[in-house]
């Protein structure tokens, strides 16, 4: 009878959102406090659940049949626990950061309301006990994040919002179609991946359904060519870009792909369907093209967005290998990339708030004005490239191993190429900031508001720590991966 904790993880953010919506719009102090408190409580709750999940217990709520065909259930298994923990912890930082970043923006009440609603939807996705519940919260996430994307209210933001909602709806439609067909074939929505057996008569239908699910979730995971919404959604406030487009939204797409492949269909069934060529191809193209596009961007946030696309490709690649090492690498990268990318975005946001500069070409000598931020940015870039003691290295190492297990010798080649490209678009920023002459002067006092600076430093430190001492993450991810392959449940 511990499952109510799981429901609370969804209910608490919703309650927080409702209370914030009811507060008077001028009451900033209480709103900020409430928002941070809500996320902290949620994170603590998730932490509690996750600890028990990794101790071998499982949270599963009773199934709520809204109709005999449509069961809803919450269940936290290890994959979900990993995602829930990553998202909820980073949410705390993002909320703290938001209170600083949003201090001078308009419509703060609406922003925080939907920020917390997105948290609820993400927790729902992580804790979904079957595919239908996952789909339900996935749709809710689309709805909850749309007001955040168009927050600025400008014509450009409206256009980005339209693009976002269009792509999301196409994706949701694909997911729905695939879900209907595969549930009709399987007869349930359960995460019974390890038990599925291939029925030869249904191969064609199931392949179509799987690809629909893959590309449907792939829209949010920004698989090429379904990515264009992500760079244009960069008009959103930076914490939104950081959180949604590095952690919550894109990672829920990734999470959906992992769920479909390993929990819903099962790795054995998917390899029997012979569809992972599509997955590998899409992931490879995404990795390469994302990096190539990133090279050409001058707007810092857009460059980070394309970098995100490329890095998400790694994670999908991990899934597409359909072996345990690859999945370990993918999941490891899910965590690492979340930490690194949120640091990068936070730094970009701090630059925008403090100097108002959005373009890389204007950032010459920026390190004089913001030394700590830029140091964090540089370290995180190193991690992105995959230089040695950082956490980015380990995940790529596992991915290469996974590729070699499948005799796919192009995987190491791809990853190395991509690493070079990563270096090519990240290092110029750092070099320009530290070594070029610019009109930035050292200033007295803090370089950024503390509510923005500290999250950056803490997150950067955390990712460095995980790079130097990767054993706990690795252990956790290994357990998750073995669970996905039907090992320990």
């Amino acid at each position, binding site marked *: 009878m511990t499952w109510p904790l799981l429901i609370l993880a969804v209910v608490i953010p919703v309650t927080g959102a409702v209370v914030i919506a009811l507060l008077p719009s001028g009451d900033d102090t209480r709103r900020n406090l409430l928002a941070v408190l809500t996320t902290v409580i949620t994170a603590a709750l998730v932490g509690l659940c996750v600890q028990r999940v990794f101790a071998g217990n499982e949270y599963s709520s009773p199934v709520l*049949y*809204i*109709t*005999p*065909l*449509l069961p809803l259930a919450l269940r936290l298994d290890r994959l979900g626990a990993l995602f829930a923990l990553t998202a909820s912890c980073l949410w705390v930082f993002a909320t703290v950061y938001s209170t600083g970043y949003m201090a001078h923006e308009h419509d703060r009440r609406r922003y925080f309301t939907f920020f917390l609603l997105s948290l609820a939807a993400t927790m729902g996705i992580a804790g979904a006990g079957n595919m239908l519940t996952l*789909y*339900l919260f996935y*749709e*809710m996430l689309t*709805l909850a994040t749309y007001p955040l994307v168009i927050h600025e*209210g400008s014509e450009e933001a*409206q256009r980005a*919002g*339209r693009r976002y*909602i269009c792509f999301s*709806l*196409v994706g949701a*439609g*694909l997911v*729905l*179609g695939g879900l*209907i*067909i595969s549930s*009709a074939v399987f007869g349930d929505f359960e995460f019974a991946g390890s038990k599925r057996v291939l029925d030869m008569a249904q191969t064609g*239908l199931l392949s179509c359904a799987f690809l629909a699910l893959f590309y449907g979730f792939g829209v949010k995971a920004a698989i090429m060519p379904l990515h264009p919404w992500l760079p244009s959604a960069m008009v959103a406030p930076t914490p939104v870009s950081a959180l949604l487009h590095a952690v919550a939204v894109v990672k829920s797409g990734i999470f959906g792909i992992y769920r479909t492949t390993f929990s819903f269909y099962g790795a054995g069934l998917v390899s029997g369907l012979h569809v992972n060529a599509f997955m590998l191809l899409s992931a490879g193209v995404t990795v390469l093209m994302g990096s190539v596009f990133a090279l050409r961007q001058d707007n810092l946030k857009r460059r980070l967005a394309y970098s995100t696309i490329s890095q998400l490709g790694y994670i999908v690649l991990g899934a597409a290998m359909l072996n345990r090492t690859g999945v370990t690498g993918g999941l490891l990268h899910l965590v690492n990339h979340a930490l690194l990318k949120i640091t990068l975005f936070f730094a970009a946001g701090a630059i925008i708030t403090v100097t108002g500069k959005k373009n890389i070409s204007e950032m010459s000598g920026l390190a004089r004005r913001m030394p700590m931020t830029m140091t964090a940015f540089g370290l995180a870039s190193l991690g992105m490239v995959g230089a040695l003691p950082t956490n980015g290295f380990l995940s790529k190492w596992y991915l290469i191993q996974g590729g070699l297990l499948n005799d796919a010798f192009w995987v190491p080649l791809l990853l190395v190429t991509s690493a070079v490209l990563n270096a090519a678009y990240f290092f110029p920023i750092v070099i320009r900031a530290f070594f070029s002459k610019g009109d930035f002067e050292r200033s007295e006092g803090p370089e950024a508001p503390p509510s923005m600076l500290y999250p950056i430093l803490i997150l950067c430190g955390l990712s460095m720590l995980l790079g130097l001492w990767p054993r706990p993450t690795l252990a956790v991810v290994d357990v998750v991966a073995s669970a996905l392959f039907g090992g320990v449940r």
Partner: protein
Amino acid sequence: MLKNLPVMVVVFLLIAGYMMPIVARWDRKKCAPLAALAMGFGVLGSLVLMNTVITSGQPVTYNLGGWIPPWGIAVKIDYAESFMLVLLTGVGAIILWYASGDIGQELGHKVTGWYYTAFLLLLAAMLGMAMANDLFNLYVFMEVSGICACALVAAKGDREATEAALKYLLLATIGSGFVLFGIGMLYMLTGHLNVDFVALQLRRVWMFYPTVTWVATSFFVVGFAVKSALFPLHIWLPDAHSSAPSPSSAVLSGLVVKIYAFALMKLLYLVFSGLFTESFPVALAIRYILLVFSTMAILGGSLFALVQVDVKRLLAYSTVAQMGYVFLGIGLGSPAGLAAAMLHILNHAIMKSCLFLSAGTFIHVAGVRQVRDFAGLSKTMPWTSAAFSIAALSMIGFPPLAGFASKWYLSEGAMQSGEPVFVVLMVVSSFLNAWYYLPLVGRIYSAGEGGAAKEDIPLSMRLPVVLLAACCVVLGLFPKIPLALVYRAVDKFLLK
């Protein structure tokens, strides 16, 4: 009294309708209470009937004039019929509530009494159609509802409404002409008018008259398709539904087109069901024809809705598309498909009434009719805007709102019939729906002056809309409540 309830539900409404002109001449303020009284009785009666059917598990039959069939007319209320009764009276009562606040201002007080009369007669006729177990009885009720529906359109009294009403009347009469011809052929083949007896007899004689049977079936399909606006025969609908006063649009789009689809479903599966076998491929073809035309309806209606600038025309074309869903369910013929058709009849009735009524509030109070003027309405009319948005999202099929469940069951029905292509259709049509509903919602919530409200919204115009939106949410969360009933009804339909 309880024994006579099946017919009393209809007759009470009829008598209230008959007396309404006198009451209107005597004291106009007493019209609304009288109508409310009659509707209240209708709602209560339907609920009692549904309860009786569910608890006893047996259909409630009532022999008018004491003549048992085949001598006289009988009325039969089974699961499906009781479902329709509750739906009709429930949604009808909510629309009437709205009308009591709206009609006096929208049409002028001179015609209020006549409007209520037509409304009550329409409701009574639809109830009669739902429970009729006699073909000719069905036809006569159909005519009452046809004439009254046109009257509700013409009540607006401007040029567009009058033209639309005439167009509607002519096409509806052609439709009922087809139905009557079909009834004539069935009577000629079987010598009966009672549905049960016709079905029994037809199963025996159709192989002697295969062509006539087939022609009769297709006449029924054509007739009812005209009346419920299946795609190529929908041309009357957008004009009629958009030019009518808002409560009329709600009742026409929400209830009237549905009852004909229901009647067709009943006839196809109760009378002609014996023909849907491999030995008579022509009758099987009817189902495929329905599938093809409903696909066209879903795509065509949505595409036409995309280009509309007038909100009521947009909603009207959306009705064309949504009727496609109902016909798709009928055509699929699998248990989940039929259940989805009936579930969608319920869900769409609630969603579309909510949309039309809230659009009516926008038009009436804020004076905006064009979609582009909708910006900022949420500031002046938060409740109505919220209701409109919920209903619109439900139309798109966002979970967990009402529209999702019916779309899901329709797809499930497609899988059960072995036609996965219709799953794709569902997905595409959801996307099309989103394409024209989401900008509408977005516009309501975007910044703008939103035609600052000229006057306060009366409570009787605000509450019904909110109530309907709440129903969308409740039905989305608990679709198993109607589905329990619907599945039992479908079992009866598919019992060969």
